[in-house]
């Protein structure tokens, strides 16, 4: 009796290997997804905009500058002063761009755009400081993108009104 039941128990042992494999795959996925999607993007409450263009397929290596409502400048989770920000941009703005896109235009101005993401309650002077640095000799960035969140409801209403006309 005792021998038969212990044999039955051994026979019903669950093989955990596939489950552990799947679980580790999930962990690796989450670790990568967290890192890739959020490194450049601070958690900010950006103002809504109706006219904003979709930010689909951003250029690989695009420069992001986050400005929180206290006026701190943050790049890749790293808070920095405005002078450190300038040094960071100087080091990266003239790096080669993907697909052979030009780095400078005929006047020597940087062709690489910079996306400035600021909180809706950030004083604009902090964004202006970034703009001021962008315009300095040796940087000469003139293409700036202002990060906003899309006002889907207002956009749908505007589209409906345009169609009604």
């Amino acid at each position: 009796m005792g021998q038969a039941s212990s044999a039955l128990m051994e026979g019903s042992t669950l093989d955990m290997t596939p489950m552990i494999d799947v679980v580790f795959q999930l962990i690796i996925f989450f670790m990568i997804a967290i890192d890739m999607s959020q490194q450049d993007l601070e958690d900010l409450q950006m103002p809504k905009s109706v006219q904003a263009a979709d930010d689909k397929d951003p250029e690989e290596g695009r420069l992001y500058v986050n400005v929180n409502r206290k006026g701190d400048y943050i790049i890749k989770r790293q808070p920095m002063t405005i002078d450190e920000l300038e040094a960071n941009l100087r080091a990266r703005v003239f790096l080669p761009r993907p697909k052979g896109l030009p780095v400078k235009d005929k006047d020597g101005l940087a062709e690489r755009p910079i996306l400035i993401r600021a909180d809706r309650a950030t004083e604009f002077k902090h964004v202006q400081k970034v703009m001021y640095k962008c315009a300095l000799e040796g940087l000469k960035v003139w293409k700036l993108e202002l990060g906003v969140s899309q006002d889907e409801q207002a956009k749908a209403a505007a589209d409906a009104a345009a169609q009604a006309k």
Partner: protein
Amino acid sequence: MGARDEATSETRMDMTPMIDVTFQLIIFFMCNIKFRMLEGKLQTYLPKDVGVNPTQHEHVLEKIDIRIERTVAKSELGLDDVARFRKWSDAGGTTMGQVRILLRGEPVKDMEALRSRLAAIRARIPGPTDAADEDSIKMNLEPLPGVLYEDVVRVVDVALDAKFTSLTFRGVPIDA
């Protein structure tokens, strides 16, 4: 032979703690993950032909200046005012009334007034024939210190709605 079987069954690893920890990790990552939401962007430019970026003057068909300023002088603005202002803004309220918009030097009442005045100006300008012409209709925005990012985005939104696509920012912060 029987002794060897016993030894094998004794060395079997207990997977339970590892599975526990692994599930804890999965739950942690699931709770923390925020997938990237599709955001929007507003295309703007810094002036190419002034200040530290001197280039040849571009052909300008029409130039519209908009100044955005606070109605409350910065020196009069205490920390409490800033906090109240931000709380109001966070609650979804408008910041109009706290800011004044000057279109070509003349104040506009509100965003709707700005929208209609810009539409009227745009209707008077002959239609651009190509992209170069479109760029020759310049709109310069000059937000003064104290203005919030949200207020500027509102003005940019209205300008884009009125088909002014070449937006340029002017003005250097006082303490830059």
